[in-house]
């Protein structure tokens, strides 16, 4: 598939997903009524459902999915490791720990903005620690090891919060947040997440050439004029800020960052730079479709997004793994 065709297909998929996301919900509203509300008919109920509930949810789904997909693609290219995903650097876990702290101490009930704000704060602290441990080293392995250490520490913090939680309801609130969801998100969340994700995406999508050069190893990349310290700074900041902002509003949604780059790679020339933008679009489409699925699947309580992305993504991934004997 040529690159324009691929990008057009993925953009079309995203558009379909957005439309579905606006049409589908717990309140059964006929499409005609939604369309009328969209074009300005005096229908306060439909307008509130459309603009206050479904639109923020759709926007967040797009942004979070794009961020996770792009972060996975950039990290797989940078670390030259097909297993890399956003959680490798500890960004997701740190953001989750920040959110859990906000839930545990009841900050989340004081103001809806406090939870995402704490999550982003925790991500930035983790990022600073990562820089301190591995900032000067050239080797991607040092970075992976430092990221795993930070991720494990944050995981331990989350376990501690669950362990010490005063009652089962508090523990359940934390667990269900950790599974990831876009339910009941408002424009406050969009306002918090979008700038972070925008900065993150801009920092990551910039690196196509440098990541291509890294295919040949560090010496060759440098001999082609790539500044490795700057590349590393852009990637760490991009993943930290972007994924931090995404996890802060959506909870920990796994698998998107790992799987999407593998799904789009065979449709490109397989160079790390060529999969950045398709991974962002693919991630957005996958997450939105998963978010539509959670609303359609009948269950006693709405399914969590992290659960659905795993169930949706992993079979696709495995089928793909069987078809392509070699993925990278």
């Amino acid at each position: 598939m040529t690159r324009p065709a691929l990008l057009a297909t993925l953009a079309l998929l995203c558009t379909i997903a957005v439309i579905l996301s606006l049409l589908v919900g717990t309140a059964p509203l006929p499409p005609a009524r939604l369309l009328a509300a969209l074009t300005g008919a005096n229908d306060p109920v439909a307008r509130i459902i459309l603009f206050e509930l479904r639109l923020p949810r759709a926007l967040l789904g797009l942004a979070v999915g794009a961020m996770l997909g792009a972060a996975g693609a950039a990290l797989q290219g940078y670390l030259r490791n097909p297993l890399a995903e956003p959680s490798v650097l500890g960004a997701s876990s740190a953001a989750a720990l920040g959110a859990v702290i906000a839930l545990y101490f009841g900050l989340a009930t004081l103001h809806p903005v406090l939870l995402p704000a704490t999550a982003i704060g925790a991500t930035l602290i983790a990022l600073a620690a990562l820089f301190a441990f591995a900032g000067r080293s050239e080797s991607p392995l040092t970075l992976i090891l430092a990221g795993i250490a930070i991720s494990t520490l944050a995981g331990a913090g989350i376990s501690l919060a669950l362990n010490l939680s005063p009652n089962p309801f508090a523990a359940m609130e934390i667990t269900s947040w950790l599974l990831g969801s876009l339910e009941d998100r408002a424009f406050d969340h969009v306002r918090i997440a979008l700038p972070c994700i925008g900065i993150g995406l801009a920092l990551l999508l910039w690196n196509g050439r440098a990541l291509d050069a890294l295919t040949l190893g560090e010496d060759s990349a440098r001999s082609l004029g790539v500044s490795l310290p700057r590349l590393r700074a852009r990637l760490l900041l991009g993943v930290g800020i972007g994924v931090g902002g995404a996890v802060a509003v959506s909870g920990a949604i796994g698998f998107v960052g790992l799987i999407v780059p593998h799904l789009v790679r065979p449709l490109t020339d397989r160079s790390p730079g060529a999969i950045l933008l398709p991974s962002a679009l693919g991630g957005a489409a996958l997450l939105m479709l998963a978010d539509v699925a959670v609303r359609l699947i009948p269950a006693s309580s709405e399914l969590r997004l992290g659960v659905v992305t795993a169930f949706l993504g992993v079979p696709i991934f495995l089928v793909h793994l069987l078809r392509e004997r070699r993925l990278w």
Partner: protein
Amino acid sequence: MVTLSIESLDVALGRRAVLHGISATLAPGSLVGVIGPNGAGKSTLVRAMRGLVPAAAGRILIDGQPITTIPDAAIARRVAYLPQGQVLHWPLSVERLVALGRLPHLAPFSAIGPQDQAAIDRALRRTDIAHLRARDATQLSGGERARALLARALAVEAPALIVDEPLGSLDPGHQMEVMELLRAQATAGTLVVAVLHDLSMAARFCDRVLLLDEGRLVADGAPEQVLTAQRIAAVYRMRVWTGAIEGQAAVVPLRARAD
């Protein structure tokens, strides 16, 4: 045209001193062989010449300008570099791999233009891999891959080319082809610096040979002056026959140990 000057260069990797007081001025249009036993500092010397390892003392100059004051992208356009034992991390097609050599010439966010494509095609033809252009580079044989990686370095079309052991994993026929190719590049005006292990190739093709031993430059000059049986015995600790076969210089190892 590029002149590379090395001025009393010391290099340390970590705390270990690797190179001591190396000086040489390499003129455009010459094929310079860097030879010496394993661990003599050959790769470190050529990495320092490309500015990939910092000098502990002394300096490297490109056309009289210290390399530390030249922006990375500008060096990249003037000096192409092929590292030793290169690994390819993603299964790119051969053509895509060779196209990476054009990165230093591309303006931000611009695609490969007709000039770049012409350079890529030339590099593919010169290394005799044009028929492999659509193949996955990770599935090539060792020799084909070595030529594809060399083509990547040639595609830069820089006035200076540094290659670190370009003959490893090539059969004798392709070794000759690569040496003839490097010779032709030098004759056309490029400064070619090649780290070599094959002393006969160095004797036959190089204009000048730098012989390193334990981090010091022990001999520098025309091959016939540097590659004497006596000096090889002292540096490589082996006995060799030197002479000419059908008018071609040859160095034939006879046995280990110089005595």
